């Protein structure tokens, strides 16, 4: 009797996880070998979906965009949030308020803010262009959502939404660094930059490694705000791989063929998960050094 009690307590969690977490993955692992248009029956096609994936220029374009997007987001977000965290780790007046302000974007829905940013960056009557033209900073409207700038604008919005979160994660990591080290460094005449590179970053070690790894996977998997902001357009310039997966199952936007492809979509989802896994593993391999600090 006693032995069954713990099972009663994990049962709801276990059942939900198996039914809605594990089963869908098994479903995808099966149907990626099928041609399944969403109605009627599925036909087994072996590796056809993967052969098609290899030739699918649209998918590889989305993979390329995913790396541009993730790379751009990380290169801007991580240093900025680390610098903010280092500054806010010292006690001074206004620190709590600044921290609350930087963290504010993370409590707001990404999809709602994407709509607002669409209104702001709209080329034809967006607020960004209105202000820039009013103060004569630009002479003609910038096409923020056009082919040239769409990816940059998308990245900037992702940075806006992400900095606060990583700042907080870094702050938590910084708490673990003893203050003596900084005092000793100050006595030896170290400046702020030296303290950052010689004490803060090495001492963050494993925490930094975990945060960066988390940031990489989040950046590679994100597509919600892009879906609302640009829908992957114009001309697939901001199409990312998980958005491409979504479109195979729910072709809602105007610029995709309105065909559901469950089998092919499963293969695309599987391939994308593998790509994320490989990138994470590579990062883990090359960042091992950070772990050996102690």
């Amino acid at each position, binding site marked *: 009797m006693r032995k069954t009690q713990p099972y009663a307590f994990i049962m709801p969690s276990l059942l939900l996880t198996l039914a809605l977490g594990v089963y869908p993955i098994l479903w995808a692992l099966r149907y990626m070998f099928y041609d399944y248009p969403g109605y009627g029956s599925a036909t087994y096609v072996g590796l056809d979906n993967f052969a098609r994936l290899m030739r699918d220029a649209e998918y590889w374009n989305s993979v390329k965009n995913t790396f541009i997007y993730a790379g751009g987001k990380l290169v801007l977000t991580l240093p*900025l949030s680390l610098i903010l965290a280092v500054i806010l780790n010292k006690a001074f007046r206004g620190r709590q308020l600044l921290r609350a302000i930087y963290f504010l974007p993370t409590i*707001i829905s990404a999809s709602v803010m994407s709509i607002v940013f669409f209104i702001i960056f709209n080329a034809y009557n967006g607020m960004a262009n209105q202000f820039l033209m009013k103060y004569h900073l630009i002479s003609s409207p910038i096409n923020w959502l056009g082919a040239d700038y769409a990816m940059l604008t998308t990245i900037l919005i992702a940075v806006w939404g992400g900095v606060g979160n990583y700042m907080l994660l870094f702050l938590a990591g910084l708490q673990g660094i003893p203050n003596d080290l900084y005092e000793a460094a100050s006595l030896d005449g170290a400046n702020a930059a030296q303290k950052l590179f010689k004490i803060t970053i090495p001492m963050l070690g494993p925490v930094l490694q975990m945060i960066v790894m988390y940031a990489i996977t989040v950046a590679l998997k994100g597509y919600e705000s892009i879906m609302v902001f640009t829908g992957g357009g114009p001309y697939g310039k901001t199409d990312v791989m998980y958005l491409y997966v979504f479109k195979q*199952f729910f072709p809602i936007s105007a610029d995709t063929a309105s065909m559901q492809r469950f089998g092919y979509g499963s293969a695309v989802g599987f391939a994308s998960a593998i790509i994320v896994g490989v990138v994470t593993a590579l990062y883990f391999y090359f960042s091992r050094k950070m772990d050996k600090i102690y």
Partner: protein
Amino acid sequence: MTSAKILTLVPRTILWLFLLLTAFLMLFPVALTVLGSFKTNLEVTVGATILPKVWQFGNYSTAWKAANFSRFTWNSTFVSAATTVGTLLVTTMAAYAVDRANFFGKRFYVVLQASMLFISIGAVVLRPQFDMMIGLGLQKSLWGVIIILISAHASIFFMLIGFFRGIPRDLDEAALIDGCNFYSVFWRIVLPLLRPALAVCGLFVFRGAWNEYILPLVFTMTRPELQTLTVGLAGLRYSIGSASETQLMLAGACLSILPMLVVYIFANKSFMQVSAGAVKG
């Protein structure tokens, strides 16, 4: 002024300029949204002004009634509240068993939850999940969305495990000696002590459910009466035509931001505590 004073003053000024500029960039889009929601459409689209000339409070009643935001707000509230209660219940029970008991398969369960954190095949899972809800007859209500949101509870589970470690086991043992059993220790000892942690985790779950977009979008594509604020707002962009009713979209955006904003103003420390707790592990 001595040169030594200037030497400390200049970097300090640059530092503050940097901090304030960043703060401005963080707040500006939110401020534009709030202020824009009180403007006329013309002011929003060509005005280039910060403050509205005349405060158009009517935008909100139009959004609330004509654009159906009362419905969306109710749906969002319902989904978020039910998801929060359900997730907390499921995860506290599981975390209690895993932290306080030894049983066969415990390691399997923990590894399963950990792998749920990392494996993601994207929108693929929505299809079998949707089919399953049709099988259960739950696609006609928001319960399908709620159950799926509750099922994604791995991160909350690990957060709670962290909090459980802070509750001394001596208390359990004392209670067991006094005649409590595995169940009553949970209800009478652990849950009351866990209250602050539950508040913090609840906030986290609520925010996630309130801001969720893709899941309710997929489930309510053919049922506009079930749409949540995030989905309804995005739909407005196509239905009314963004060029003509921008101010209503901003009012709608404010309606969906505002509840979280109010909670954040009062509980921002709790919000930050959760995110920070994630790395402390």
